[in-house]
């Protein structure tokens, strides 16, 4: 069942993005930013954890999960360290996404040749 949910939610999020992209003048950069903010908002409303529980990878593989992880990191930081934890914990949970993207991009940029 979780496979079907993953397919439907992942497809729905991408469909929504494509409809916005095709019918407005927004660029892909706008779309990914909008979905990140939307993820943080859904996490704030306690909806995103529910989506992850129901449809697994359909929610965790999308860019909106980035906003969710940022929000959750900040809240976890607050629980552990108080006010200052909001800032010190913000990036903890999505550290893997940023670190791995930077490292892989750097390595591949060094060893591969750009194609035109």
């Amino acid at each position: 069942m979780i496979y079907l949910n993953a397919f439907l939610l992942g497809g729905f999020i991408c469909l929504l993005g494509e409809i916005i992209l095709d019918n407005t003048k927004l660029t892909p950069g706008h779309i990914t930013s909008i979905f990140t903010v939307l993820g943080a908002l859904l996490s704030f409303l306690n909806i995103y954890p529910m989506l992850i529980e129901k449809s697994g990878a359909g929610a965790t593989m999308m860019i909106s999960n980035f906003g969710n992880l940022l929000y959750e990191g900040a809240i976890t930081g607050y629980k552990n360290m108080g006010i200052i934890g909001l800032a010190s914990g913000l990036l903890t949970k999505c550290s893997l996404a940023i670190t791995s993207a930077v490292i892989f991009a750097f390595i591949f940029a060094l060893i591969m040749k750009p194609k035109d």
Partner: protein
Amino acid sequence: MDKDEYQKLVKEYTPKENKLKKAFLAFITGGAIAFIGQVIASILQESFGMNTTESYTWLCLITIFTGSFLTSLGFFDNWVSKLGCGLLIPTTGFAHSITSSALDVKKDGLVTGLGASFFKLAGSVLLYGIISAFFLAILGVIIYG
């Protein structure tokens, strides 16, 4: 020929983007990526005894590696122009944006090229993600306690 007629003619000959087909392709691609991801996550949970959070973290790493690798091979750009948001909204899009900007500016040098423009495309995701999450978290602390 007056202006209205001309506009009509222009409209007739402008190639129509098939929005329905593009939306359908985005739906199928995004769904398929999420489905494959869920299969990988389930395999990690069953065979390697990971809990769900661990498996999704590994899945994130695998997705970013795949996106970055395919971009550096050069044919991911063609796929993106065909499949649109189906590839851009999953985390592959994040890896793609960083890798493609890194490859583009490589010729300008390590610091002035790579260093300066590394986050040219992905920067907005980081910026608005951090800003919105920070202020929402403050709001959340005030509201939920």
